[in-house]
């Protein structure tokens, strides 16, 4: 008997006409694996006899707050889109993206503070991992900021009147990057 079936029995279970959350999923998995590799390396390195923990500059906590607020801003923007208030959405996206830039500036300032204390990249393993993790994270924040500005431009052109998948993806990526930072902070401070 041939292995053919009727169309109805064999339609792909992923339904090919919707937008693509899978692409975003792949990006998130890749980024997660990258940071997992770094954290694994840190956990291994931490068992070394010469590990001395450092105090992170308090500025880092302020930056974290900024990042969390920016996530809230993104959510306000999404809510505005659902309500149909394009102008509000555009404004909130601008706020979120600007806060993202502020976060990056704050991180650079934190680096400056740490270096001024004599803790540069090569000063020791904990410092090295701090610069490595925050630097790599910052690069991903920058990518997220670009995505937010792009979503803002699209919103301004009215692209999100019927469906807002692009905005959703940018939002998920932004929250993810914020979540990663919280995890990294936990690893860098408690260990």
């Amino acid at each position: 008997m041939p292995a053919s079936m009727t169309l109805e029995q064999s339609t792909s279970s992923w339904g090919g006409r919707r937008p693509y959350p899978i692409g975003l999923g792949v990006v998130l998995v890749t980024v997660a694996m990258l940071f997992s590799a770094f954290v694994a390396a840190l956990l291994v390195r931490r068992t070394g006899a010469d590990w001395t923990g450092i105090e992170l500059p308090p500025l880092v906590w302020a930056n974290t707050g900024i990042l969390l607020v920016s996530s809230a801003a993104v959510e306000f923007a999404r809510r505005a889109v659902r309500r149909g208030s394009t102008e509000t959405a555009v404004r909130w996206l601008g706020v979120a993206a600007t806060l993202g830039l502020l976060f990056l500036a704050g991180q650079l300032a934190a680096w400056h503070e740490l270096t001024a204390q004599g803790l540069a990249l090569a000063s020791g393993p904990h410092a090295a991992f701090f610069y490595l993790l925050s630097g790599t994270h910052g690069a991903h924040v920058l990518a997220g900021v670009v995505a937010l500005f792009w979503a803002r431009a699209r919103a301004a052109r009215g692209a999100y009147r019927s469906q807002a998948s692009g905005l959703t993806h940018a939002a998920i990526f932004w929250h993810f990057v914020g979540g990663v930072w919280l995890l990294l902070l936990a690893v860098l401070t408690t260990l």
Partner: protein
Amino acid sequence: MSETHTGFWRRYVFSTDHKTIGKQYYFTAMVMALFAAAWSMLLRLQLAWPQQTWPVLGKLFPGLYQDGVLLPERYLSLVTMHGTVMIFFVISLALVSGFGNFIIPLQIGARDMAYPFLNMLSYWTVVPACLIMLGSFFAPDGAAGSGWTAYPPLSALSEAAPGSGLGQTLWILAMALWIASFTMGGLNFITTILNLRTRGMSMRRMPLTVWTLFIASILGVLCFPALTAAAIMLLLDRVGATSFFLPSGLVVGGQLLSYRGGGGSPLLFQHLFWFLGHPEVYVLVLPALGIIFDVVAVGGRRPVFGYRTSIGALIVVAVLSMIVWGHHMFVSGMSPYVGEYFSVATVTITAPFAVLAMNLVASLWRAEIRLNTALLFALALIAAVGIGGIGGIFLATATSDIYLHNSYFVVGHFHLMIAVVTFFAIFAGTYHWFPKMFGRQMNETLGRLHFWLTVPAVIVGFVAMHLLGMGGEQRHLYDPTVYQFLRPIQWLNVFISIVLALAAAAQFIFLGNLFYSLVRGPVAASNPWAATTLEWSTPSPAPHGNWPGELPVAYRGPYEYRVDDSPEGYTPQHLPPSPAPGAVPVPV
């Protein structure tokens, strides 16, 4: 969807058409292969006749030779670059990026990839990577020379070797660009396969070529970040004076490296590297097997034996491949308990691999074999993967690996598995899909000649390398005759060099055939091989948008050869089932 209004640059250079991008990858891989093969010929000359001087080569390559003698440090650069370029810039580029891009949308019934613009970006990211790799030979201290595995401290300390200067930094940068390109590609493949299959094309109706590319992409996406992490930390160790991988108290050339904090671990790099490194070989080998399943079904005129068990075996191989990386590190100083785990785990991969090999062979049972060049290479691949796979057991068993680690047994093994198997798949795929790619057919007589001059030579040559390893010859060896115990088997090196040089020369027949057929080959029909999968339901070459009219619908599995009473002896996937007498036709 017409392309008539796009200019030359948008159509041929910055194209977003997956078929063009696939060809761009393929031809780029070809160029890189010429370089990597040339380097390997220089290596084989040195290995076979270490005492010989080569004045002509000395004039051609003044940076590599001095007074007609290949410099030892340049030998190591050639080994490093040969391996790196072949693995990433030839095999992956041609097999995964080249064929993958070309064939996936066609076989699943899509007009293009999910993200055509990203696809174009992924190719144009790999081009600078290629240029940087090639250009690194012109760094002041030469190209990277720490092996394709780039183990620190050697790769981290420019003081430790000439090849560890700027050349190594450029190597890292090129690899970073390559990984970015591959990740973009993997993203595209996964999304496309999951989301863009045409109506009726369930996952269980996809050809095995698509399945293996799908699994390879997932593997790559999961595992490449470990190499990215290792590369970034290595770069920081090199230029940022960090000590992620560098222990304390290093003394190089009599100088204590006191500017370094130390405390790092070279083994950490190895773990991160091989976490990617082992799955990477399956990223290469699985698509090779997938292509061969397709070719064997077409050429044997029967369905693949064990389509479902093959999918299961492929998934098991992929999952297992992520938990066995330590078999590259048995003698590294890793805990022997951990080593024993990795040995027990690694040999389990032989089980699903044996299923795949059995299914390949069993796909010839009750076949009606129609030989063409593609099928010939497919059959030769079965032989190669059989021998190579069995050789792997010797290395996976920790106790025997004590003797064989870093010997030519390893070199022979990975060349059989990654060079011979994948190149045979590239050849099979080329002869098979050339009509769909270029609208013409390659010459079958020249194809036979290519086959017969290549296959015996490469298999014999790389099996002989295993024997060198049994004799105890180690890798990265500029002059084997330094060692008395190796002199009696030095003749094997001469034999291997001659045999492989002949095989290398034979590749010009393939290239000549390919380029001649591009312009003068006989015009191809849309389905010259009487095949069932969707790519053959569109004209040759496939037009922009892949199907001139509506997308095909998949009504059946991918390998319906001689399974019903169709007069042609095969039933294409897109052919609707004939209605039973009196039945109402199913609306499309």
